């Protein structure tokens, strides 16, 4: 299992052909109190860099982009009733959606944890 990061502050946990995607703890701390999460529809084909989900704080709405191309396999419905889970456990229970990875070569452009830490430092 590998965890990768984007410059847009998303994380991807790679398990076989599946990528589980969420936003980083750094991102949630920048956003502040999350009050609403709009999830993508299961089955939707997402292209890399396409808006996939929306995370809204009291003050503003922020897009979550698909970090790679793929089909939405599953979404975290818990976030509909408990959006604040993003603030309390962004890197764990508050995963947002799972993608079936269409092209593994796209993973090459993402950062490992050390590189992401340097990016946010």
């Amino acid at each position, binding site marked *: 299992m590998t965890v990768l990061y984007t410059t*847009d*502050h998303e994380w991807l946990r790679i398990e076989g052909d599946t990528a589980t995607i969420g936003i980083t703890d750094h991102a949630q701390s920048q956003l502040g109190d999350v*009050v609403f999460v709009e999830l993508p529809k299961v089955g939707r084909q997402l292209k890399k860099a396409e808006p996939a989900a929306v995370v809204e704080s*009291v003050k503003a709405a*922020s897009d979550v982009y698909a970090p790679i191309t793929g089909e939405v396999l599953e979404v975290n419905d818990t976030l509909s009733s408990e959006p604040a889970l993003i603030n309390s456990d962004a890197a764990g229970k508050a995963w947002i959606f799972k993608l079936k990875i269409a092209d593994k070569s796209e993973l090459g452009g993402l950062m490992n944890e050390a590189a992401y830490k340097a990016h946010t430092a």
Partner: protein
Amino acid sequence: MATHVSEAPTLRKTPLHALHLARGGKMVPFAGYDMPVQYAAGVLKEHLHTRAAAGLFDVSHMGQIALRPKSGKIEDAALALERLMPQDVVAIAPGRQRYAQFTNAAGGLLDDLMVANFGDHLFLVVNGACKAADEAHLRKHLADACSIDMLTDRALVALQGPKAASALARICPEAPAMKFMDAGPQQVDGISCFVSRSGYTGEDGFEISIPAARAEAVVSRLLDNPDVMPIGLGARDSLRLEAGLCLYGHDIDTTTTPVEAALEWSVQKSRRSGGARAGGFPGADVILSQLEQGASRRLIGLLPEGRAPVREGAQLFADTNSADPIGAVTSGGFGPSLNAPVAMGYLPASHAAVGSLVFADVRGQRLPLRVSAMPFVPHNYKR
């Protein structure tokens, strides 16, 4: 995630800038100033704390103006100011203040403001983003009757919430005896300040104008009380939105009249048709006629039926499929005290009745909203 980095030009600092930084304020550009949007507690906790106890807001970016009558008679300054607004300024008793608007020739709003009678002069508090234009407007039209002083050496803070009075009483024993919209000079912690019992949250509270050099000391005394938490611009906006209070540049501007903005209550009888000093302000023809006949559109409260916030700029539709919008949201977000999204916007009079159902376009979906009475959260003023 899309994160925004603003390359701000040289931002001005309020006299409380160092205090914001020391207390962990997350600073953003606002009205030309480097201001705290929130502190470590975050918008949600800051909002709820203000409604439960007391919040301290730095609003020093706002303009504070002294208008002194050249004749020495306060009524002359009041009459002069009435040339620029549809309010009865003459009737503001010494020690009282009133909500007002500067109007333009089309009946639109150049700014909204507070006007206080300090006995020998009038004291105005105007929006930060409008203060330079307001000063020029006053100089252009009132220079014959008034001297106009922009008080740039003063901070302005708001102390808001059910515990504001007890918190301020520790350093200003006279404060709890003041009533809503009382205003005047007071000693606060031994410093000569101007205090009004008013605010922008819907809660009981005070606005305190403090000489810049003493602002940090006075504010530190207020914050040296577990009931009082510093509050950023984020919660200031969610508090005023729940209270149904307009934000200039968003809900009201040069294209909206006081009647369209549902501010008729702020236009006194004496300035309306048949009143002792009817008209005589810019846009009087439009505003007086709208006061009698109504306006074709109206600023209304909106409660989204789902959980998704409907934000400023969202277009409003009569149904789920019509192509032509009938209005737009001018302020919208999440109301922490209501624990639900809230919004306000303009709708045609035909759709403005409380209970009407309209639809907002949010990311390509039509979300239902119900027209609601405002305020969304009851006001808690000490009348």
